[in-house]
């Protein structure tokens, strides 16, 4: 079970890495996560860490919540989330501890989960990539329909799981194996290759990917050693350069 943390999605841009390859990146802001409580085998039947993330005005915190945070000696946070952790690993974290960017040390790829943008009630073309109907040649008022949804008297019903129109988006989506491009320690930013679910300003949950890191096009570096030669070096130079100083 891998530990996770929370971060805010700031948006997307593109950057050049050392080799002159342009990569699309999502910028994530990682404010400190606090260990608010622990779930233990004896008490809860499973082991996990409860982390708090994000600022909140004191006025908005009700009394029971305040007490919960007080127990850990942590300022109340806006979000609370649990991450499953092995029993052994659980001992490494103390209640009240702060988890920062050191979480990403030596990590090349991440799994990032967030709530996708809501699309409302969507038709089959948008929701399931159906082809629709031809725009001409006598098509009559069925341009974006899905076609037939079943057979005849046998089986006489619509099969379960038939893809139809309905609500789309606003659900938990996990993007797996996103490559870490740059870590900017001063600004608490992580730059990850590709898109991340959700709109700007939303909180996403980040876990260390269990998958093998993908090679970057034109750069390579699928293994940790290989990568530490190239992109990680670029990340350090970038972290300095982004602080207003020139590379």
């Amino acid at each position, binding site marked *: 079970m891998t530990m996770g943390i929370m971060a*805010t999605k700031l948006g997307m841009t593109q950057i050049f890495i050392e080799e002159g390859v342009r990569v699309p990146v999502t910028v994530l802001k990682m404010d400190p996560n606090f260990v608010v409580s622990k779930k233990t085998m004896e008490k809860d039947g499973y082991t996990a860490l409860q982390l708090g993330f994000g600022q909140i005005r004191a006025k908005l915190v009700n009394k029971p919540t305040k007490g919960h945070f007080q127990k850990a000696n942590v300022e109340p946070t806006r979000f609370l989330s649990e991450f499953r952790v092995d029993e052994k690993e659980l001992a490494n974290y103390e209640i009240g501890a702060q988890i920062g960017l050191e979480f990403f040390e030596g990590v090349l790829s991440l799994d990032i989960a967030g709530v996708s943008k809501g699309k409302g009630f969507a038709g089959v073309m948008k929701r399931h990539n159906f082809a629709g109907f031809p725009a001409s040649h006598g098509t009559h008022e069925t341009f974006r329909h899905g076609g037939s949804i079943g057979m005849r008297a046998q089986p006489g019903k619509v099969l379960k799981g038939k893809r139809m129109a309905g609500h789309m988006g606003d659900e938990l989506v996990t993007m797996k194996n996103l490559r870490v491009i740059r870590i*900017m320690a001063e600004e608490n930013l992580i730059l990850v290759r590709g898109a991340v679910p959700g709109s700007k300003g939303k909180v996403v949950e980040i876990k260390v990917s269990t998958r093998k890191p993908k090679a970057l096009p034109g750069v390579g570096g699928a293994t940790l050693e290989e990568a530490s030669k190239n992109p990680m070096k670029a990340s350090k130079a*970038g972290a300095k350069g982004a602080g207003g100083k020139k590379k």
Partner: protein
Amino acid sequence: MANMIDLIEKSEVTGDFPKFQIGDTLRVFFKIKEGDKERVQVFEGVLIGERGGSNKRAITVRKISFSHGVERMFPLASPRIEKIEIAQTGYVRRAKLYYLRDLRGKKARIRERQDYKKGKDLSTAQVNAAK
């Protein structure tokens, strides 16, 4: 927090390029890799278009190579661009010079910029002097 993204984008803009305008003839010094070796290739041609801003800014340069028109886009934030020189300034009244694609020879010429309005439209010599 969107300004953090601006910050990243600005930090990406590292090149120090002269102020060229559409219609100018540019020399772009571009590093290319051949196997293990790296060398600089010069691409000289007319600046026929520009797009994007900040770190996404890119220019399109057109030249005639062995009687074939060749166009190349250069993202200005690319670390592979070593430098850009203005070979000649040009006077044009359009933002995109795509009409040059249909013209050959003498018709595809561009008049040089003259300094008849003060503070505006500097000619080649003046631009190079200003650097």
